[in-house]
């Protein structure tokens, strides 16, 4: 049933004269999104995560606990009114550190996807648009890079350089674009068969015009779905790397190394793992729900 039908039924049921004006595409998209509870929850979680990261100094009750604070009298305290998530081995407030931990996770998302999405999309579009040699070169290279396990690559580069989260994530960026290149290549190849592309070409449009004005707008929905789902993967990935010891420089908190630190004190001091662990789950859940919702909304495969 189309949205127009839906609204018509609603109008008639409530005794209004039928509003037969066509609904805008934007409204229809929003309508589909807002009727999907999972997607709305996902969006709220994502927004709250981002706000948490931005306003961390205001939200965290003990903002100075992300630094080199050591308070041995209050180490390993269970959650109470003063420390909502308890304290860690140095007596630092875990809730505050978790809130700040979102910053590292989201910075990784921005860093990795900020580079790999444009690069991957551009390569994919170029391969799909020009075909021939360009196509074979790009898709061949993409397939080669795709076969490299990202974590192994991150560990290897981390070994060769310094084992820091930044170096490891640079390594991840070197591989991440491949997924976008592959996807956008497929989408572009499909779009190339459309009449409007042919029409633009016949009208004498330049390559740039066709790529940016005809093809790119039709890739936007696919790119945004893929990017949202990828954000969740990047967060998971960053947490896994820092859990393995490729962290940011202490005492800056990041979620993965907080879990690794707290693990030594399980099961007695369960709260030290619970808070950062839940934070990872929360953020990835949000991006996953939002990504799935966007996919349903745009009705694309990504």
């Amino acid at each position, binding site marked *: 049933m189309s949205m127009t039908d839906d609204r018509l039924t609603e109008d008639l049921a409530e005794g209004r004269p039928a509003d037969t004006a066509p609904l805008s595409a934007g409204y229809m998209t929003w309508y589909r999104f807002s009727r999907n509870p999972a997607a709305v929850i996902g969006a709220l979680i994502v927004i709250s995560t981002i706000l948490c990261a931005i306003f961390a100094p205001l939200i965290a009750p003990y903002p100075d606990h992300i630094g080199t604070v050591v308070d041995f009298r209050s180490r390993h305290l269970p959650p109470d009114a003063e420390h909502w998530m308890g304290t860690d081995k140095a007596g630092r407030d875990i809730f505050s550190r978790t809130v700040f931990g979102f910053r590292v996770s989201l910075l990784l998302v921005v860093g990795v996807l900020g580079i790999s999405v444009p690069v991957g999309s551009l390569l994919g579009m170029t391969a799909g648009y020009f075909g021939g040699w360009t196509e074979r070169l790009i898709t*061949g290279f993409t*397939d*080669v*890079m*795709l*076969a*490299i*396990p*990202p*974590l*192994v*690559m991150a*560990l*290897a*580069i*981390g*070994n*060769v*350089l310094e*084992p820091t989260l930044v170096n490891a994530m640079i390594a991840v960026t070197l591989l991440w674009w491949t997924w976008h290149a592959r996807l956008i290549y497929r989408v572009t190849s499909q779009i190339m068969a459309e009449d409007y592309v042919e029409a633009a070409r016949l009208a004498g449009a330049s390559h740039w015009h066709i790529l940016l004005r005809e093809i790119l707008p039709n890739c936007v929905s696919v790119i945004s779905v893929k990017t949202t789902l990828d954000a*969740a993967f990047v967060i*998971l990935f960053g*947490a*896994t790397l820092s*859990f*393995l*010891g490729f962290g940011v420089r202490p005492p800056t908190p990041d979620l*993965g190394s907080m*879990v*690794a630190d707290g*693990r030594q004190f*399980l*099961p007695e001091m369960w709260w030290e*793992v619970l808070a950062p*662990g839940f934070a*990872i*789950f929360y953020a*990835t*859940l949000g991006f*996953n*729900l939002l990504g799935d919702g966007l996919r349903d909304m745009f009705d694309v495969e990504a």
Partner: protein
Amino acid sequence: MRADLIEAILRRLLGFVLVLLVLSLMIFVLARIVPGDPARMALGPSATAEQVTALQQEMGLDRPVLVQYASYLGGALQGDLGRSLVTNRPVIRDVAEFLPATLELVIITIAIMIVVAIPLGVTTARYRDSWIDNGGRVFSLIGVTIPSFLFAIGLQLLAANFIPGWPILGRVDRTLPIPDGPTGLLLLDSLVHGQGAVFVDAAQHLAFPALALAMASIGQITRITRSAMIENQRKDHVLTLRSFGVPDRVIVFRYLLKLSSVAPLTIMGLEFASLIGNAFVVEMVFGWGGFASYGLTAILQKDLNALMAVVLVSGLFFILANLVIDLILSLIDPRQRRGAPA
């Protein structure tokens, strides 16, 4: 076997060899450009300049990087991967010692993945939009949102607290008579030697690590199986079968399942990369002492030869897994044989 099939396999193999070359070259060159002299590191800070130069010559470090790489590659082809700085043994022996543990873990993990994910995908597709489907959706979502290390930690805690006497560390109880060979896979070896106690013990050790490792991919594969089943239900030949009154059971198991296993199998091949990655985490949590643990030590100790071996073997792992999957796919789906783009 048919010629087209062989050609397709050869083409894939060639591509894969290329992958390994690019991968190893990248690591090798990077390792050589970066400051930090392996000879100096091996000898320690007290060595004299002459000693360092001598070792550099012995290790071939004074030659151009590409020449070094070529000689490394030549050695690798003959099974010589150099010496490990940490264990001070030939790397190839370390590989032979540590790889079976990881292999065993990965094989059981894949078995769990298939046994859980495919039936779950089929069931959720069959009862679409019912409570079973919603439950399956939540299950898949949990699988993709919770990192492997949390699964591992959680399962380990569960076992420790609720199942008295259940082993949560290592591969096998060291006091038992450990079978010696032939494969290094404990489950298999203990069966060959008829040691039931070892088999049971090894299986107990294996259960939770494998489950933790499988969880990350089960969600993804369930999802893909479900959507493939739903999509294929609308295909003309399936509708025709249905209109002829062919029972549901037969449609699902004889026609739909085969058609719908192409997508999940392809994804499983790609998921293999993250499986290898997650193995590092799971092995660490469960003290598994396998190849991934070895790799992690090599990385933290900057043991270049060991690291190269870890990268190459994981790459090889990935490639072989995908080759096997390609073979299965070409048996299931004749369209795959012509090397047509997927």
